[in-house]
């Protein structure tokens, strides 16, 4: 036996005062009595044998010395060499994905897993070390290897379930790395088994190994918390602006019945809490219902889909789940299998519908009804028509110059059609007769859904540009007839076709061309603001006018927790007619990515600066950054908050204070069919361990038993003293 703290043995000197005090007995209490007549009878009748009399006095001393010895030994912390040899390294991998919220096990799968983790901690043997890893989308070490039981318990108490999808493989790999080369390493995976089939690295541990394994194949044990629970959830919800209707939008919703019985429910759609549609659904077992729903809205807002009135149809005997519960331990606590919706996280989904903004258009023309009507047909356009060039050009309007060109082009957004003369940016060349468009930029959003190669253009002007241009359409001779003019004081499009002599005005391409140009001028790319799945990242880009310098940008989670927005600030000037703070966010991978690149390229000459907590665009600059991973379902906001509140990370604002107006919103949904399917994979059902994960009670350190014996001796000594069997 070895002592961890041998110096504590010096405390044995405390035995000396005990012996001294025992020898120097304290003076007894004197009690006068009227007669000793009866006491004599008592004590003389059965005189104690001298041996016991002496021994019972000695016994008290021996008990006290023994108690002292036990306490000193426990402080010295003795241990045996074999305890070191048999010490284990355990990694508890706890699945905290969204499916662990299911309540088919009381109170939830996650709580059951957490309770099992507590039991494992409570059953740790002496010198055992335990680490806890959270398995979500990415593995996370909740606490590293430690043998300190209270710390582990506090860590387990602080864990919470998330809305993330499950990725067990990286967590198990991380657990193996934590174990390293230890001979008695074990990875205990507490999961509900709601994951896709694991790949090769898990094949070996999926089978519980009965023998010791090599270091890189540490023993992996699965404990599955889950049953064949029924669930129905929204597995897809997106919205985008209509390509045809300027104020229309399309919502894509998908609902999956992940159960063995038919389920009836209702899908309710609301836009900013105003009901817009209710769809009754009758879902067969395993069916996924999907539909695109077309609606109109100018202002946009928060679109929310909710599953309500979920009820199970009366199952037939053949449709009852045959597999039953997968784990003996949780089955005792399992709820009735008739609950058709064991997971509520996927019963709601959100999407952000970008608003449409009215645009002012000033048309300067000597008279072309087709041109005028194509703008007036757009409900988002307010048209003003003039026949002569104005002295001052409005800054908030798109100016359309038809057969009018000033000597110097005004700043702002310009659409020049059939210019009748030169200006500071071009010269007029010879007329192009019977021009045929042979080349057009199909990647440009300005040319989306447009074909000009079959348009008859009897007459067009050849323009010789003085500044850089981006050619959108050109003739067979290479002369541009539709081009974007690169200039610093505003956007400018030039169309050199004579509308009166061409049939362009009669073609469907013309209103599409005008609509594309209006969208390009407006700079709005929000036709699709993607709803993200939990755990996703989002690129956020904001432009704003100067505001209070003390304000900083914060990310506000659906539960109200605010964290600083790590962003890059560029000093890009505002040249669009967008509102003071416009929603120009671009989700990663969205169709508007090229547009964003173009916008960023326009300000590429400015050096980006990284701000820890950027001020809320005090100079009207462009703020861009990544947000995420977004691990909670609901609406995430970018808000402008006070510097004081931003100084503390992960703050929860007081409920008494109204939340700040969001600058940008991101919808995050579960949108994971596997998480909505609460039925464990068959691989996990097969690999679920029946072995006890908790060590026996006798696995405690030696000092524990010493203290236990000392307590027992104390109790015995107290009892004997009270009974006056010892003195």
């Amino acid at each position, binding site marked *: 036996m070895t002592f961890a703290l041998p110096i504590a043995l010096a405390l044995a000197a405390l035995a000396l005062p005990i012996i001294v005090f025992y020898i120097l007995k304290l003076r007894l209490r004197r009690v006068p009595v*009227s007669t000793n007549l*009866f006491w*004599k009878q008592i004590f003389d009748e059965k005189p104690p044998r001298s041996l016991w009399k002496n021994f019972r006095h000695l016994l008290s001393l021996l008990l006290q010395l023994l108690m002292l010895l036990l306490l000193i030994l426990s402080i010295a912390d003795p241990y045996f060499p074999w305890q070191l040899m048999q010490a284990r390294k355990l990694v508890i991998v706890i699945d905290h994905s969204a499916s662990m919220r299911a309540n088919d096990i009381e109170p939830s799968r996650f709580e059951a897993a957490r309770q099992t983790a507590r039991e494992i901690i409570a059953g740790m043997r002496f010198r055992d070390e335990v680490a806890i890893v959270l398995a979500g989308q990415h593995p996370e070490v909740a606490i590293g290897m430690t043998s300190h039981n209270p710390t582990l318990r506090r860590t387990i108490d602080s864990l919470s379930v998330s809305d993330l999808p499950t990725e067990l493989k990286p967590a198990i790999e991380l657990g193996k790395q934590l174990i390293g080369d230890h001979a008695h390493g074990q990875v205990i995976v507490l999961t509900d088994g709601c994951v896709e089939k694991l790949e090769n690295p898990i094949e070996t541990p999926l089978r519980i190994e009965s023998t010791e394994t090599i270091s890189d194949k540490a023993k992996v044990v699965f404990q599955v918390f889950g049953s064949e629970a029924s669930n129905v959830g929204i597995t897809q919800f997106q919205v985008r602006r209509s390509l045809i209707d300027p104020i229309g939008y399309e919502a894509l919703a998908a609902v999956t019945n992940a159960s063995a019985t038919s389920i009836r429910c209702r899908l309710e759609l609301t836009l900013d809490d105003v009901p817009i549609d209710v769809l009754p659904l009758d879902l067969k077992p395993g069916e996924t219902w999907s539909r695109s729903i077309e609606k109109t809205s100018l202002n946009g807002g928060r679109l929310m889909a909710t599953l309500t009135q979920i009820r199970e149809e009366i199952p037939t005997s053949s449709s009852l789940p045959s597999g039953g519960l997968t784990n003996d331990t949780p089955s005792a606590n399992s709820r009735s299998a008739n609950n058709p919706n064991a997971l509520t996280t996927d019963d709601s989904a959100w999407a952000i519908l970008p608003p449409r903004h009215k645009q002012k258009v000033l048309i300067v023309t000597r008279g072309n009804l087709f041109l005028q009507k194509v703008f007036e047909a757009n409900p988002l356009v307010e048209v003003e028509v003039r026949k002569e060039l104005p002295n001052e050009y409005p800054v908030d309007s798109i100016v359309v110059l038809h057969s009018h060109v000033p000597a110097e082009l005004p700043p702002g957004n310009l659409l020049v059609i059939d210019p009748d003369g030169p200006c500071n940016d071009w010269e007029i060349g010879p007329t192009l007769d019977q021009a045929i468009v042979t080349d057009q930029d199909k990647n440009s959003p300005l040319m989306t859904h447009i074909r000009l190669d079959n348009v008859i253009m009897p007459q067009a002007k050849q323009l010789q540009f003085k500044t850089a241009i981006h050619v959108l359409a050109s003739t067979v001779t290479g002369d541009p007839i539709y081009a974007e003019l690169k200039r610093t004081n505003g956007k400018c499009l030039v169309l050199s076709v004579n509308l009166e002599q061409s049939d362009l005005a009669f073609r469907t391409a013309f209103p599409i061309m005008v609509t594309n140009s209006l969208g390009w001028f407006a700079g709005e790319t929000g036709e699709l603001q993607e709803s993200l799945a939990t755990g996703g990242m989002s690129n956020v880009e904001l432009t704003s006018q100067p505001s209070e310098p003390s304000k900083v940008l914060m990310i506000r989670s659906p539960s109200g927790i605010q964290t600083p927005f790590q962003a890059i600030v560029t000093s890009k000037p505002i040249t669009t007619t967008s509102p003071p703070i416009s929603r120009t966010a671009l989700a990663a991978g969205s169709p508007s990515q090229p547009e964003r690149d173009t916008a960023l390229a326009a300000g590429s000459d400015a050096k980006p600066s990284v701000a820890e907590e950027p001020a809320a665009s005090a100079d009207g600059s462009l703020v861009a950054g990544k947000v995420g991973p977004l691990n909670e379902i609901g609406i995430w906001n970018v808000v402008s908050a006070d510097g004081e509140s931003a100084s503390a990370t992960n703050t929860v604002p007081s409920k008494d204070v109204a939340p700040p107006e969001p600058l940008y919103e991101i919808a995050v949904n579960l949108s994971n069919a596997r998480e909505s399917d609460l039925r464990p994979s068959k691989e996990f059902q097969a690999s679920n361990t029946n072995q006890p994960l908790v060590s026996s009670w006798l696995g405690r350190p030696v000092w524990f038993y010493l203290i236990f014996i000392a307590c027992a001796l104390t109790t015995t000594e107290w009892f004997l003293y009270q*009974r006056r069997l010892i003195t």
Partner: protein
Amino acid sequence: MLFPPDFLTRLEYLSIISKRVFRGSLLAQRRTMQMGSGIEFSDHREYTAGDDLRYLDWNIYARHGDLLLKRFQEEQDLHVYLMLDCSRSMAFGNPVKFDLARHLTAALAYIALADLDRIAIVAFANGILTEFPVTRGKARILPIMKFLENTSTAGEATDLGRAVQGLLHRGSRTGLAVVISDLFDEHGFQRGLDQLRYRRFDTHVIQLHDPKEADPALLGDVELVDVETDSVRKVTVTEKSIRTYKRYFSEHQTAVREYCRGYSLGCTQSPSTVPFDDLIMRMMRAAGAKG
């Protein structure tokens, strides 16, 4: 102050009660067991030579021819001996037993004096310590009270037998002997009472005890100091030994009671917390029921 101002008033009340209800039954005005020259016929016995012929019952002789002598019960003053235990064990308790014992002694003395009897007080412990000589007349109550006030607990262990022996050696006439004591006599209380009984004393025992003697609040390691002998005994008092003590104490009380009943002696047992007049009344009621 041992005797409060209203003490005499309470004694007078007790005296009246005793005359009205228990007349002749308690102390005075009772016939002695002596045969003598009284006027009240008692019984006959056979004539022997030398007997006084005046007491020959001639009517019996005339009818049956038998010579029988008439016997008469002698009427004389009753001598009452109040034996007060003054051992140091009587100073034990709260209130101390000795105070109650002196109150009882004074009360019984007053009742006896009021009935024209003669009384004597004998203070004893391991022998006779002091005594108040035989006296009569109600007027003597004040000296008696003064005597009792001046009497204190002293002496060594109680020895009732030796005290009675001393009383008898003084040639005292037989009469009523009232023993007021706790009877914690290591030699046995029976020895002294036996001697009184042999000398044909009418004996009444008043045994006093303190409640703490009956139920001692002791536990643990203690030194028991005997207040009479100053002997010290180191003991470990346990629940079991307390139970044994109570059993022995109860057996002692029972032994006193059984002894008195067996020899037709008056017996009164009381804790020291009972007022003396209540105890006297209880004694008178018991005597009345017996008579």
